[in-house]
């Protein structure tokens, strides 16, 4: 396995090194270099240390494993591939992603999954193991966001204003979510068996990645949130 020592490299040098690297490699000593693996395809990389903002932006098809926390804007506009984070992620993860997977063991900051979208066979999936900050799934247009609430610090599974402006896709929050206030334009209800079936494949992959059991994850009901097509966004600005 090839090793890239990032300790004294700036983001440009790290990215040049990884473009020239073999298909499987490890970045050691990462500390804040931005745009790592932006737009790449066909590689498997592991990052030790803290990757900088916009990790895996425009990711085309590569597997990235981070053995620490990651900063802001992970998987910005990613197209395909998988980003696995053994820690927490910062704000605005998966901004406008249109394909691929972001699986996070820990918690997410504000605005995770903002403006996620989907097209035909492209269905992006984000799973957050702990809790998510405010504005989760803001302007969500497609794809699947799942939050498991496995954190143990007593915080609510999601902060304020989840699903603001949501108009497509699905969100699953583990638990009954009675204390969460959702906007009028979405419907939140207990997920039925066939709805859970849709995400079984993702959850089972997540369990394999992080060593959880499906039984444990499914021991609680899930709340599913979808846009309410009977109550669309209208007359917000002008009568139309």
């Amino acid at each position: 396995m090839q090793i890239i020592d990032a300790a004294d490299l700036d983001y440009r040098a790290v990215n040049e090194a990884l473009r020239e690297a073999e298909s499987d490699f490890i970045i050691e000593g990462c500390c804040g270099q931005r745009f790592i693996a932006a737009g790449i395809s066909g590689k498997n990389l592991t990052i030790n240390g803290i990757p900088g903002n916009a990790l895996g932006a425009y990711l085309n098809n590569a597997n990235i494993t981070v053995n620490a926390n990651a900063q802001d804007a992970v998987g910005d506009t990613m197209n395909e591939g998988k980003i696995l984070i053994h820690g927490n992620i910062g704000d605005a993860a998966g901004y406008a992603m249109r394909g691929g997977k972001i699986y996070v063991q820990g918690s997410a900051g504000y605005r995770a999954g903002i403006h996620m979208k989907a097209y035909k066979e492209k269905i992006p999936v984000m799973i957050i193991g702990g809790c998510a900050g405010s504005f989760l799934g803001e302007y969500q247009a497609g794809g699947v966001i799942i939050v498991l609430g496995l954190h143990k610090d007593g915080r609510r599974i999601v902060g304020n204003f989840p699903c603001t402006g949501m108009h497509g896709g699905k969100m699953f929050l583990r638990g009954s979510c009675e204390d969460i206030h959702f906007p009028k334009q979405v419907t939140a209800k207990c997920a039925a068996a066939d709805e859970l079936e849709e995400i079984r494949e993702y959850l089972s992959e997540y369990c394999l990645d992080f060593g959880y059991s499906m039984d444990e994850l499914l021991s609680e009901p899930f709340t599913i949130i979808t846009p309410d097509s009977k109550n669309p966004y209208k007359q917000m600005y002008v009568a139309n």
Partner: protein
Amino acid sequence: MKIEGQVRIPSGCAISAVISKDGNKMSGEMIINSMKPMHDRSNGLGGGFAGYGIYPEYKDFYAFHMFFDSRDTRKECEAFLKERFEIIQSEIIPTRKIPEVTDEPIIWRYFAAPLKSVLASLQLEEKEFVAKTVMKINAEMPGVYVFSSGKNMGAFKAVGFPEDVGVFYKLEEYEGYSWTAHGRYPTNTPGWWGGAHPFTLLDYSVVHNGEISSYDANRRFIEMFGYKCTLRTDTEVITYIMDYLLRVQGLTLGEAASVIAAPFWSTIAAKTDLEDQKKHTYLRTMFPSLLITGPFSIVLGFEGGLMALNDRLKLRSMVVGEKDDKVFIASEEAAIRIIEPNAENIWSPAGGEPVIVKVKEGAF
């Protein structure tokens, strides 16, 4: 060639801070190193630092750090100061000549105490008098800027990248119990020496990443109370707001945070703690013009502590970490890890949730 301000150089900002809760001294080198992984958040048009506990030998005197555009303005300003203060020490602030920092003004510092006779005749309390003097100089003396005016603390700022500004000011020679730092990426206002962060008044200093959309509403309100916004950028007004709320109005840090980053009315209405709900309603009603809207993450430095705060929508990043007696605050986790690889309890405060860290009583 057009200078920055006439031409727009599209370019975030970076902030970082460290404090020892035991009051242990740290050289400025640590905070300079913290800024390095965030280099790309700045564009070289401003960098600065504030250190607390750095002047123990002059701790009872106000330390005025000043920029002058010429020897004449300095002489003129010194004459003005001597009528109002006993100056016990005046000197050039030591700097290094480095190619990364150029076109510096004359940079001077004075350790001074207000003359008792002047205070008595004006019937002003000492801090109020010093604040008024700073406002007068910055507003009325062309070519002179007071960029630091607290006791046992000081700001150091310049046009350049922060890590170079730290070298320029020889910060490794200073030792403080807390430090804040800023790397600037000016978006709407000129990159000039007075416009670099921190912005200070008395012992308050503010470093800010963001952009205040309520600036003019805030400025018009605060200028009613004798503050004058002269430094051609938005962050300045935050410093004066904090001075007004904390020193003049006597609010606690938490209350001041609830004024400038007030929760939405819907969030206040949903509070189950009725006392808390009443308090937030009161603060929003009393100080509506001091609500700061638009993105910000700030660190407020003050004697014996730091407060970090995000805007209520959390439109800027900020992480906090700890290790032993130290607490770290930065725009990015990398800035903490580079100086403390084993930092623990890394977390991101929610929007409007202040993080207040104080040095143990008597340790500074």
